[in-house]
């Protein structure tokens, strides 16, 4: 068995003294693990940092085997990320989330979104909103996608400002008004066709609360897991405007690119 693919490093676990088991999100083979001989060498260690883009050749005698990776770097992003707490906490959030995806199950759409996100992960103007959108995409890939296209009560598509925590469907302002204490706010940058110039930090936090609730209910709790520490730290960072240059609002590029 042999194939070649591109991928993004999710993590590398020590295997013996010289080798590592590399975990990648690949374009055509999904989350895929493989042994990298000499992965702890000074030459390969910088390449196998989370967030880096790599081109790999995977070889194994039969498909069920762990197999070996031959790795070549294509994008050394980790060196850029380590200067940015936003990028590091974002990276931790994304890798923890992707680790819950089934192994060897291709998700080309998710990979494409991840590739875009990686290019902007240290950009406080777009990264937090992109991560919210990515979490929504993961929920959808796992079969728990939210329906934000029309009102769950009226079927209308205008003024969708709430989300039902029960059904995960959008609710219009008029239909949701009597129950607004029990509904979640739908941030403007997640609304269908909602073109916005700037995304406020409050909107991003509302987005994290929205995805956090459904991730906990459908993804973390059934697996007996708590919300990842990195996600908690990321949300705290956004809440206190600690992302350098964040200044309380983010650009709408997130809406277009995820």
């Amino acid at each position: 068995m042999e194939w070649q693919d591109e991928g993004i490093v999710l993590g590398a676990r020590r295997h013996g003294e010289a080798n590592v088991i590399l975990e990648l999100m690949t374009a055509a083979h999904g989350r895929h693990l493989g042994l990298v001989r000499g992965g702890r060498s000074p030459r390969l260690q910088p390449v196998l940092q989370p967030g880096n883009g790599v081109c790999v050749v995977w070889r194994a005698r039969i498909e069920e085997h762990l197999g070996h990776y031959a790795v070549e770097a294509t994008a050394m992003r980790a060196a850029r990320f380590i200067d940015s707490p936003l990028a590091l906490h974002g990276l931790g959030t994304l890798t923890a989330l992707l680790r819950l995806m089934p192994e060897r199950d291709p998700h080309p759409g998710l990979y494409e979104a991840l590739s875009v996100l990686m290019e902007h992960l240290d950009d406080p103007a777009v990264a937090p909103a992109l991560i919210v959108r990515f979490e929504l995409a993961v929920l959808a890939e796992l079969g728990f996608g939210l329906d934000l296209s029309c009102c769950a009560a009226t079927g209308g598509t205008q003024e969708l400002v709430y989300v039902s925590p029960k059904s995960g469907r959008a609710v219009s302002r008029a239909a949701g008004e009597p129950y607004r204490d029990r509904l979640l706010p739908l941030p403007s940058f997640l609304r269908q066709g909602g073109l916005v110039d700037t995304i406020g930090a409050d909107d991003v936090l509302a987005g994290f609360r929205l995805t956090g609730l459904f991730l906990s209910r459908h993804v973390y709790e059934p697996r007996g897991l708590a919300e990842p520490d990195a996600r908690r730290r990321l949300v705290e960072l956004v809440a206190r405007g600690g992302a350098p240059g964040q200044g309380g609002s983010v650009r709408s590029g997130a809406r277009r690119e995820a």
Partner: protein
Amino acid sequence: MPSPVGPEIERLIQLLARLPGLGPRSARRAALHLIKKREQLLAPLAEAVRVAAERVVVCSSCGNVDTSDPCAVCSDARRDPSVLIVVEDVSDLWALERAAVMNARYHVLGGVLSALDGVRPEDLNLDRLVARASAPEVKEVILALNATVDGQTTAHYITDLLSHLPVKITRLAHGVPVGGELDYLDEGTLSAAIRQRTAF
């Protein structure tokens, strides 16, 4: 196939094979060498191992290993008490001591935050670090952590943790190693070196 040696020697080989850098074959060679040098090597080694097992303790102040608590580094009055160097592991402390560039005190975290390995803040020696950094004589905390994603995530976490204290927090520079040729460096290291360039 029956072992050509007795259970005692087989046990010695098995234990040696667990050491870093040794596999079953090299453990056999080491065991054979020890047996051949019984008086000069085996007996003194056994005694040294016994003494170390009895006396080695983890320093309750910095997390270093030594035969006394506090350790020799912490109890050395000639060290600068205003600088605290935070390292991941004892091996990093030893590496910095070999370099002999700072006559400061250390703090060993005992690991770095890692989602993959399940290492959380409560698994690290952080409470003691905050207490030590709060001491009035401490003016600077140097985060000498690995230039990896996990190492720097931990560095940022510690920076947040100590942000309320009146101490200067610094970290090691990232860039071109001495003797390194630019042509052979990875792009990430080169870009970090360019970003962190200094006036010449």
